[in-house]
Structures are given as C-alpha cells and as structure tokens.
C-alpha cells in the first residue's frame, strides 16, 4: 500500500478519522517501506516493529471506542535518536551510549505518546548531533534519497531522509545550528526550528543547551504546524521553557496556504545571500522572493552586520557547552565501558579514559578539545566571553531587523547536498554549511526551511528559510505555507514527487 506512505500526516489523520484506514494498516505500510528502502537509505538506527504495532493497535482501539487521544491518534512518527525514549535504545549516534535504554521519556516523546502517535523507531544522526552530513554517526551514514551517493544533511539526516523516502509520514528532529533546517533543504522536506524555549528540551540529550531546540520534520508546512502543536508549550521540567501559550501555528499555516501575502513585510538578509551560495541555490531563492512579492509581500533588503561573526561565535559556544555536557559519559553508570589493555586492576580514571577514547568519534573529540580550551582559565574572556557578546549583537541585529519587517528570508543552506566523504576531512568547509541557519539559534528565534526547488546545475533540492521574532512562530508558518502553495502550484505538485524512485537494493 505504497500510496498510504505518500500521504501527508494531515491526510492520514483524516483517513483514520473517517475509517478509511487503520493505524495498524498504515503503520505496517511504513514498516514495509522501511524494510524495502532503509537498506540503501539507512535513516533508522532502531526500528521498533513490535512496539509500534502495539501502539497502533491501541490507537485503533481508542478510535473504535470513539475516544481518540487526539485528532492525530494513530499517525506513526520517527524520532531522532537524541531524544530519550523509555524502553527504546537511545544512542545519539555514538558508541559510548551503545546499549543504553533510557528509564524515562523526553517530554517531547511523552507528548507524542499522549497524542497517540505510534513511534516507528529512532533515526540516524551525526554523533551527538555534531555535523552537517550524518556522516559522523558511529553507525554509518544516512544516504540522501535524491541521490544515494550524497549526504542527507545533518545532524538530523536520518529524520529528514526517513520523511523524504516515505519511511515515515513525519519525524522529530533537533536543531542546534541548523540540524533540522539544513537536512530539510537538501532532502526537499520541511524542517522547523521553533522558538528557543517553545518546545521542551527535557530528555533531549544536550549538544549545546543554550542553542538546542526540537522541532518537526515533515513534508508539508501544515504537518509541521500540527506536530508543533503536539510537542510545543510550557514544560515545568525545563527551566528554559517559555511559560506562555503557543501561538496558533496551525491556523497560521492554514491561513498562509491561501498564498496571499498582502501587507506582509519580508526582509532579505543581505549577509546571507550572494557570495558563497551555490548558483542554483541562489537562483531558486531569488525566485521564491519574487513569488512572495507577486503575492503582495513588501520585500526589502535588510542588513544584519553581526551575522558574519555568527559562525565563529557558534563554534566557541557550542563546543564549550558540549565539552561539559559530554563529561558525564564516563562508564560509571551506563553505556559503554572499556577496560584498558594491559592493566590488571584499572582505576576509575583509567576506565574513564579508555572508554572515552574508544567511545567518542573524532569530531566529538575535536569539539571536546575546542570547548575545554575555550573555557580554560585565562582564555574564557577571549573566547567564550567574547562569543557571548557576539551573540548579544546578533540578537540586536534581529531586533532591529524585526522593527522593519515581519519575517526575514534567506537560502537555508549555501549548497545542495554534497557527496558523501567530500567534506569529511575539511571540518571548516563542513561548518560553513550552517552559515545561514546558525544566527537563529544564537538568538533563539524560530525558523523554517521549505523546499524552493531544484538547482539547475545538479538537479538537487534547495531550501528557503523564513525567520521571525521569538514566540512569533505563527509568522514563519504563514509565510512558509504561502511559499509552499505558490511553489507547488508552479511545480504542479510537491517537489518530492520528482525524487527518483528508490530501488530497494541493499546498499
């Protein structure tokens, strides 16, 4: 029943409500699809076949009894392996957490369960979300469904690829510097990073606490809004969670779908276009801006001069926080434990050292070293302290920009998907992928990436990013949905319909 896997989550919810399908039927359809294509895509680290079917049966029972848990009850979902799932392995793509089964659910996961969404499994990612290609997973890379030789973006390449390859109707990702949006752009899917504090981080295994945010990975803007509504809102377990009602993102997505942008002021960020952006990416972006204008938007260019320092500040703040977060992986209580060779009765310290040496990959070690250095006494002011100042400047740039315009737009990623291995030996080139997405994380503002077409030169998907002020997530949904409508009309159907068929050959 491949047509079930082609439907959006909103459509599946309707089909469930009308009794046209059952949760078990569509969950099985997705499990079949996973069996068929995941050998070549490798989007999943763990598929919970028995568990998801049991949850689907429970959803069907609730529907049959007339007591669905929510309007979405029974629509299955995939979850990035960075979120704690009770009873389901959670590895963060790292050897060091191999075999760890959390005794608790992340708040996001708990809310998925509460809404009745059966969890298909856990998706692949760069180790501890460090990377832009999912090549840094200790369990092997994920492949881009558009071209299996290419990366699906990262760190949430697994979630994006699963959704792009129709292995899941939707998924949860996390975005620290673009890990939801950049994979969305390079796989032709929608990725939304909510306002910092808008979605609970409790149970999200922190990469950089002050930047991380979980959000929806979907094929349509409306699906993203529906999922956002499930997972968003205040959580007393997360002190940084905002104690305010979520804006009505679903209404905003529906409103935007009419394609009318009259009266909406759109700012094109000067510093996030032009040089360094692939020609086809830039062209699709310019086209998208043109469409917004034609739909009635007032488009202006705005300057955010501090954005040029965003990448440097990000690569100090992130490793600093990460170096501290990752200290807990010491083989004392859970996860991997490696006994050092040649030592009869190793001390705790020797076991810690051997375990961390064996359990962390190179990129993780690189960032632990960077972060440890940046926080060291005598360097703190020059690095971490200075980076925090840049962060303040970036927030001020956003503030000033949002006094002029309602939303900001830019290409999501500077390039289309690159080839596996192409940038693996060049960390800085890899880091540059997040150039356009990082400022939103540093300032805590929401951003969505929606497909903007295919680059002429390589036929690969490109994305456009829409940013709004904190807690104005509804604005990005409205503009994102409008762009989706305008572009889909132009393409005569969703972009993903143009993706090559996967053959089901094992990689």
């Amino acid at each position: 029943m491949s047509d079930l896997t082609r439907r959006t989550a909103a459509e599946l919810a309707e089909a469930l409500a009308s009794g046209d399908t059952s949760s078990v039927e569509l969950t099985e359809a997705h499990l079949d699809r996973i069996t068929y294509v995941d050998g070549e895509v490798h989007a999943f680290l763990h598929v919970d076949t028995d568990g998801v079917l049991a949850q689907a049966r429970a959803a069907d029972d609730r529907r049959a009894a007339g007591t669905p848990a929510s309007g979405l009850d029974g629509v299955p979902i995939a979850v990035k392996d960075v979120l704690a799932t009770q009873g389901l392995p959670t590895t963060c793509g790292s050897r060091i957490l191999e075999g760890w089964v959390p005794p608790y659910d992340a708040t996001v996961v708990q809310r998925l369960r509460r809404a009745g969404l059966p969890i298909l499994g856990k998706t692949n990612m760069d180790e501890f979300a460090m990377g832009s290609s999912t090549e840094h997973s200790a369990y092997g890379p994920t492949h881009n469904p558009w071209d299996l030789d290419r990366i699906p973006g990262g760190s949430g390449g697994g979630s994006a690829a699963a959704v792009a390859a129709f292995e899941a109707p939707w998924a949860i990702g996390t975005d620290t510097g673009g890990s939801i949006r950049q994979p969305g752009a390079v796989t032709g899917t929608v990725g939304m990073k909510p306002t910092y504090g808008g979605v609970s981080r409790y149970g999200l295994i922190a990469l950089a606490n002050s930047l991380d945010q979980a959000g929806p990975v979907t094929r349509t803007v409306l699906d993203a809004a529906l999922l956002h509504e499930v997972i968003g809102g205040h959580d007393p377990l997360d002190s940084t969670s905002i104690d305010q009602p979520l804006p009505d993102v679903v209404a905003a997505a529906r409103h935007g779908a009419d394609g009318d942008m009259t009266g909406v002021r759109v700012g094109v960020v000067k510093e996030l276009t032009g040089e360094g952006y692939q020609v086809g990416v830039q062209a699709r972006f310019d086209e998208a801006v043109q469409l917004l204008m034609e739909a009635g938007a007032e488009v202006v260019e705005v300057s955010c001069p501090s954005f040029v320092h965003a990448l440097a500040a990000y690569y100090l703040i992130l490793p600093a926080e990460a170096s501290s977060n990752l200290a807990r992986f010491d083989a004392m209580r859970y996860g991997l434990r490696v006994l050092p060779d040649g030592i009869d009765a190793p001390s705790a310290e020797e076991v810690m050292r051997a375990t961390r040496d064996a359990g962390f990959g190179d990129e993780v070690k690189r960032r632990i070293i960077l972060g440890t250095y940046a926080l060291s006494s005598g360097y703190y002011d020059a690095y971490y302290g200075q980076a925090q100042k840049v962060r303040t400047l970036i927030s001020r740039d956003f503030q000033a920009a949002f006094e002029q315009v309602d939303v900001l737009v830019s290409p999501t990623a500077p390039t289309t998907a690159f080839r596996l291995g192409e940038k693996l030996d060049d960390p800085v080139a890899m880091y540059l992928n997040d150039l356009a997405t990082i400022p939103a994380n540093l300032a805590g503002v929401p951003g969505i990436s929606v497909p903007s077409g295919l680059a002429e030169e390589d036929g690969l998907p490109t994305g456009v990013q829409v940013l709004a002020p904190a807690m104005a997530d509804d604005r990005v949904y409205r503009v994102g949905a409008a762009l989706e409508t305008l572009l889909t009309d132009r393409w005569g159907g969703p972009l993903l319909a143009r993706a090559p068929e996967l053959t089901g050959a094992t990689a």
Partner: protein
Amino acid sequence: MSTPTLMSFEDALAAFDPAMGLEVHVELNTASKMFCGCPTGFGAEPNTQVCPVCLGLPGAMPVVNRVAVESAIRIGLALNCRIAEWCRFARKNYFYPDMPKNFQTSQYDEPIAFDGWTEVAVDTADGLETFRVEIERAHMEEDTGKSLHVGGATGRIHGADHSLVDYNRAGIPLIEIVTKPIMGAREKAPLVAKAYVGQLRELLLGLGVSDVRMEQGSLRCDVNLSLSPAGEGTLGTRTETKNVNSLRSVERAAHYEVSRQSAILADGGRIIQETRHWHEDTGVTTSGREKSDAEDYRYFPEPDLVPVAPSREWVEELRGTLPEPPRERRGRLQESWGFSDLEMRDTVGAGALVLVEQTVAAGASPQAARKWWLSELARQANEQGVELVDLPVTPADVARVQALVDEGRINDKLARQVFDGVLDGEGTPDEVIASRRLEVVSDDGALSAAVDDAIAAHPDVADKIRDGKVAAAGALIGAVMKQMRGQADAGRVRELILEKLHA
C-alpha cells in the same frame, strides 16, 4: 609518610600571624533536592532516593528548588549579607565518579549572598570577647554522591579493592558560606574558628534551615590557614584542610596547622598550596592533592537554568522571618534567665545557649537547665570527646529529669544514673527509671523500717540527736540511703529520724 616537625604554638605565635578563612558547607533540610523532586532523608538504602536528574542521566534537566533559594536568602540575611538582585548558577567542571554529571552545579562569580559579617563571642582567658567575622559570600550548590571504598584498611581510596557509590546524597542542596580572611586573632585564632562554626551552627539552627549535624555531614568545615611574619599584615600561602567535622576539630586543626606551617617556615621552607586532610583520631593533617593553577574548573553559566532574580519584596518578606540577631538574643536571654555575666559566659562558651533555651522552653528553670548542661552533661561530653549538642540527650529529656527531681521521684544522684541510661540509648528518662528501677522510696513503711535499723545500729549517734545535735542526723541519713541503695527520699528520711528521736 614522615612525621612533620612541629613548632610549639607559643613559639609559632611569637614569629607568625595566622590568617584563617573558613568555608562551611551546610546541607539544607529541604524536603526535596536542589534540582529535582527526590527526597533528602538521611540514612535511606543506597541509591533509592534518585531520579534521572540527580543521576545526571543524558537529557535530564535541573529545576531550582524555591525553598532552597529561600533558605539561602535567609542565611545571607542572617549573616548581614547583601542579596543579589540577579545571579546565576554555574558549572564547576571536574571528573569524579561520585559526581554524576562530572560537573557540579554551583555558583561562581555571582553568589546569591555576599559582603556580610557576623559577630562571634569567644570564651577566652580574658573573658567573653567579641570578634567580627567578615563574610565573603554564601552561595548555593548541589552535593555530590558518596563513595564507599571497600577492602582497604583505612576506608580511604588507597588500598581499596573497589568502591561503591551511593547517589542518594547527590543533588542535596548545599549552601557554602565563605569568610574573608580572619586576621588579627593571633593566639585566639583556633578559638575564633571554633566559636565561629559553633555560633554559625546555632544561627542555622535558629533559622531552621538545616539539621546542622556535623557527625552526619550536614555541616562540614574546611579550614584555610596561612601564616605571615608577625606584624607584617600580609597573607602567606594557605593550605585548605578538609574533613574537619566537629567543633573541637576545627580548633585542633587550626592549632595543628599553625604549628606545622611555622616549623616549615622557620626552617626556611615554603608552604605548598594544597588540600590537606584532617585526621580526627591522630589529630594531624596530611597532604591531599596539590592545588595549583593547573586545577581549572572551567566555570561557565549553567545554560539549563535561568537566572535567580529574587524580588526586593520577597527579600524583605524573608527578612521579616529572621530570628533575633545573636548579640540581642544573648542579652535578652541573660536578662530573662537572671544569669550573672559569668554564668552567661560559661553557657555560651560551652555551646549550651540553645540547649539551655530549649530546656527552659520544655519546662525547666533556667538555673536547673544550666546546672545539668554545664556540669553532669558537660562532663559526659568531655569524657566522650564530643560537643554537648552531639550528646544523644534532648533538652526535653533534661527538663523531664528536672521535673522528676522537683516532684521528689528521683534525687540528683539518681538523676545522674538516669542520664547514664539515656546516653546509653536505654530510652527516655521515664523508660530508664522503669527499667533500672530508679525511683526513690518515699513510702513511710519501708523508710520507717530502714530508719529503725539505722537508729539501732548507731545508738551513739541517736543519743546525740536526742540531745539536740540535729546536725548529727546526716550520719543516720547516710546509713539509710546506703541501705536503700540511694533510692530514698532524703528529706523524708530526715523527717522520720527527727520524729522518731523526738528531736
């Protein structure tokens, strides 16, 4: 390890001035932990009071305990500190197996309370002297777990086969109170240190924020001490002596470090900045890890928590809940108890102020309360080498014993036996009296027979009494008491003797 040379305390003081800094860690008695809802009770089965947060499981996040903040503010106010309008938690990064996250959530350059002072009454040879101790800061942090080293002879990590970790203590709220260097106390420095910790404990007890039981580790003290050439007013290199877990040890450890450091300095050596461990049994400190610039905790603001910004209204509201300041309190109590200056000084010096107060509150007269705590119980504490407050006897017990004396059911001699029983864990005073059959005999039948026996046995004494030498009755009373094994009502015995001899 070689035994270090020591200089006599007197010689040391002739050549050097000690400067001390005291760091006191107080475990708060909040119902739940600093950053999670786990209970905090002492003595539970290992690893039963834990959750993802205090175990530092991946993904778990802290939430600040409001009551702990409230306690921290009240402690700060009671120490005359300024209360931060805005402060943050910070991560103190270092690896240790009993620290679940391998960083401690603490406060660094933004403590909740700072720039305070407290006055300490010190019982010196010159009388009760008041020292002003400046408070640098009081900040909030979480406790670590507890390591148990198994298989070694000493219970220390060296020589142990393996270690077990109990995380029940991990995340219990701590307040760390740090003094500024205490200078100019000279030979009284060890006494000031002890008095400061003792009176800080009373203050915390009065605030009701902690159980402050040193033997259970709910109040722990580090003694930082350095010496500088006498009269120069400079600060030398300090050592930080940890594990100083009784009031007496605070004094002894300071005393010892003065003697140890002075011997090194007098010999032309230099003091290494290091952590030292106090050994209660042998009364010495030994070198722990060397502290140097290499130890870098890489503090940075805890990104999982929002700043703590107590409103001025809240702070003022909490100020209203403070108990009376120590000096005013002492004055008021002295007046209401009718104690002489000397009696008051002895009471404060013995660390018995709160105990006497509570005993009076439980119904005893101030003099009776003072008498028991400063004589019989002080003797027992001294014998056991503990502080009065650490004796397993409560002010209510003392008041009860006095009430029984007042009722004539026991006498002072029996009362001491009652205390023996209470201290031996035999139960309440009434239970001890019942089990040891200690009640005095005032039953005339039994007493009358004993008095007759005594008169018969001592006819010469009886004659003297008949002749009007009433003072001689003491010998007969003694004989009766002996026969009754002390359990007789001496007053009634006397009456009976005089009655029978028509004196």
